[in-house]
């Protein structure tokens, strides 16, 4: 019914009701917008979805691990590897696990240690000429412990010492891989799809 068809005695009441409803709608929408502009989320969510400062969404994943064990990241070790992959990895394949994005993380539970650890990784670079090398910076529990430049498609064994400073009294070991030369699959692809390395295996030994 057009507005003008409302009988005159009721028009004023309808008009006031209309303005009141419009005010309620506008007010509600402003309040909801204000809530949306101030999200109530944790740091991991904010970093990945809102600020987009990382391509690796931190998750509550910690795998069990016995020192001296070799974890395979090929298809044969998929189940075991899955428990320690936090983020930034694709599924295990025949030739290893591809990294995804600009950072990847692994997290394992370890017994208390007094001394250093020796980490041994098998990794291969993902190359697409003209880019034929991949620079990887490895950090343990937030402490930078090693930097490597990988080249060639064949896996290379990389060993480095994890100093006590990186271990501290923590009962978990978080290994972060930062890639400086990730290759996007297409020029317009999102940075979460960048490829850098294939991880084949991981082994940790007490020194």
């Amino acid at each position, binding site marked *: 019914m*057009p*507005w003008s068809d409302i009988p005159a005695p009721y028009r004023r009441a*309808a*008009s006031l*009701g*209309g*303005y009141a*409803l*419009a005010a309620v*709608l*506008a007010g*509600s*929408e402003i309040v*909801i*917008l204000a*809530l*949306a*502009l101030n*999200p*109530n*989320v*944790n740091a*991991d*969510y904010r970093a*990945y*979805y*809102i600020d*987009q400062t990382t391509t690796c*969404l931190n*998750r*509550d*994943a910690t795998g069990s691990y016995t020192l001296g064990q070799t974890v395979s990241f090929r298809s044969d070790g998929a189940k075991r590897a899955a428990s320690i992959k936090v*983020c930034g990895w694709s599924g295990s394949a025949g030739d290893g696990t591809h990294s995804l994005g600009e950072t990847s993380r692994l997290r394992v539970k370890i017994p208390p240690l007094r001394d250093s650890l020796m980490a041994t990784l098998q990794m291969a670079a993902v190359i697409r000429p003209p880019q034929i090398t991949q620079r990887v910076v490895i950090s343990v529990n937030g402490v930078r412990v090693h930097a490597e430049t990988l080249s060639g498609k064949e896996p290379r064994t990389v060993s480095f010492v994890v100093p006590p400073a990186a271990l501290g009294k923590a009962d978990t070991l978080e290994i972060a891989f930062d890639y400086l030369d990730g290759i996007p699959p297409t*020029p*317009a*692809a*999102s*940075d*979460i*799809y960048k490829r850098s390395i294939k991880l084949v295996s991981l082994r940790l030994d007490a020194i």
Partner: protein
Amino acid sequence: MALEDVARPSAGARAMVMTVAAVPLLFVIGGLAIRYAAFASVSEETGFAAYARALCRWDCAWYIGISEQGYERFPIPNHSNVGRWSFFPLYPMLVAAIRFVFPYPTILIATVTSIACSYAACLVAWPLLENNMRAYVMYCAFLLSGPFSFHFTTFLSEPLFVLLTSCVFLALKRSSYLAAGVSSALLSATRLVGVFVVFATVIQMFSEHRRQGGSALSFPRWLLGRPDLLVAVLISPAGLFAYILLLYLTVGDGFAFLHVQRAFGRVAGNPLVFLWDGLSAVPTTGWLPTAPQWSALSAIAGLALSAGLAARRQYGAALFCALCIILPLITNLASMVRYVIGLAPLTMLLVVLLSASRLIWLAALVLFLGACYLMTVAWIGGYLALV
């Protein structure tokens, strides 16, 4: 004599109503038969349930998840970074409500609901097509038995989106702004781009104001003096705001539907570059365009039809359709074919143009029905351009 005069037009009107109701029904049955034949040609299973499952591809699985389990909180279960938040809630909620009454598998309920929505969208299109029977028949054929009819008959947002878009434009045609506002609110809870229809409402109000002799400068004052129009404008995005509130309460982030796009790999870029990249993806073998080429071509065709709407002085519909194409185009070409064919004003313009000549109309009708079979096979096979 007088009685006969009254009875004759009434009988004619009744026959017209019967025809308008029967035409889409015919295409519902015809479309089901064609798509089932396509399904039977590639599947070893038989039966309506297997057919409905086979046509449930791509985003359909997300809608089933929302309908059955709602939206996830954060962190997302199974260590996933892809939440369901990018899919708007109205249609899965509607299916969930119907399933509450009729406890059948979700995909069965959704398939029947989608067909019902598309059927209703055809009925609403009748007055929008100015009672042009030829165009109406072609429109019904397109939605219910056409090359993309699987989009309008499975669990995707398109059936409800087309229905509500038609309702908004019918209400605007009749200057029923409150009805348009309520339909717009529902539309904005169906897909994000639905919120853009508010611009069509404002443009229609502006046209009415100008028709009444008002100046452009006096429009804001005129609008503020009409509380019914204010309510119509302010209620239009209510569906979107309700969803933002729901996400804030569930995830803590009202804009999660935007932020989660990152996990789907969508990044903002230059739409022209995306179009050029799509057109440049030439086939390595054969002459058939590649999926990116189909997507780019459909975006261009959609924008051209939007310009056609503007040329016909349907500025509101033109702006709405252009925005509905350009917004997703900012991220990439994914699902572009589906987005374009789901814009009711564009499809209506297309069928009106094709109906101008009887021969072209007949040829297009035959083409629609034939392509329905082939495209359904392609859809079941996962052809990327149809995603």
